[in-house]
């Protein structure tokens, strides 16, 4: 069973090394690849010096395009399971096995590590929780599938879904859109509880100031996404 961990990295010089080392010590059998999305800090230097496998995108694609590069790489290298994990120290590799298990058992095509299932660990700000709840409700209306932590970037996919994402992955608001895409194309999504930490460095791709704007845009994007996928169904991609 070949397992790849994708770690998107944009200006994470303070945390990327710790993240990769923690991952190596918890799960030495998995491969990892850091996607350096044109960082302007010393990230790439650190990756090079420590012999960490990485892809270096020649121009900044944002989180969606960066993660997709990882899925493309996983597809080309024939990985069976692909896991996505943030490079800012929010996601604890100690939970990797819990996130993996439903895939190994064949219970799901995609597993999302959710911080709200058991409400342990860092629960993020009230405003953000409300926003996530709203998106979660929206996804439930649009797909009939309940997912609590829709913006979690801690997720694992099996081979079929990896190939699907390598071909088409949402670029603008990838986390919630990827869930909708998976559910509407007939993949099963499952959540498992994980604990998340407060980010150790860097900045969120969802900034505080523009969060209202983000919510409006995501809502429209998700509804549009649902409409264009209506009636498609099946694992067609």
């Amino acid at each position, binding site marked *: 069973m070949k397992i790849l961990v994708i770690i998107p990295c944009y200006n994470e010089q303070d945390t990327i090394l710790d993240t990769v080392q923690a991952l190596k010590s918890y799960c030495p059998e998995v491969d990892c690849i850091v996607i350096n999305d044109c960082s302007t800090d010393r990230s790439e230097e650190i990756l090079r010096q420590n012999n960490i496998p990485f*892809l*270096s*995108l*020649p*121009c900044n*694609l944002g989180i969606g*395009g960066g993660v997709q*590069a990882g899925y*493309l790489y996983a597809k080309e290298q024939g990985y069976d399971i692909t896991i996505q994990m943030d490079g800012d120290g929010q996601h604890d590799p100690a939970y990797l096995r819990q996130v993996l298990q439903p895939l190994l058992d064949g219970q799901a095509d995609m597993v999302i590590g959710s911080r709200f299932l058991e409400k342990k660990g860092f629960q993020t700000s009230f405003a953000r929780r409300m926003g996530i709840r709203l998106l979660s409700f929206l996804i439930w209306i649009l797909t009939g599938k309940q997912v609590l932590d829709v913006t979690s970037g801690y997720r694992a996919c099996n081979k079929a879904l990896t190939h699907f994402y390598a071909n088409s992955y949402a*670029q603008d608001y990838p986390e919630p859109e990827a869930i909708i895409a998976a559910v509407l194309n007939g993949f099963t999504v499952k959540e498992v509880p994980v604990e998340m930490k407060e980010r150790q460095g860097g900045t969120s791709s969802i900034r505080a100031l523009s969060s209202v704007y983000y919510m409006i845009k995501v809502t429209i994007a998700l509804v549009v996404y649902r409409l264009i996928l209506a009636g498609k169904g099946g694992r067609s991609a």
Partner: protein
Amino acid sequence: MTLELQIWMLLGSLVYLGIIFWMLKTKRLSVRFSIVWLFSAFALVLFAAVPYVVYVLRDILDIQMPSNLVFAMTIGFMLLILLSLSAAVTEFADRIKRLTQTIAILEKRVRELENQSHQDNH
């Protein structure tokens, strides 16, 4: 419509058409994107040369001023062109994204091969 206005309009729309053809000839504009522009230019030339067409259309659509019809159609063309440009940008963004990802994967392979040959030489 006065004859002077008609002459100026005809002249203007012909210059517009000429610019499009010149851009096509010098490859400043691809044929693919020129179709909607050419169409709008031909329509303008037609309206200027044969204003009767505009009058008939005005009567059919029950618009008070013939000029409003020309304005409305111009705006319609602009919307169409803007939409086609957005579609083109989307397509290009998609291609650039794929290229960027492929380059990154190839760069990793090159880097590893270089490291390997470097080690072999020592």
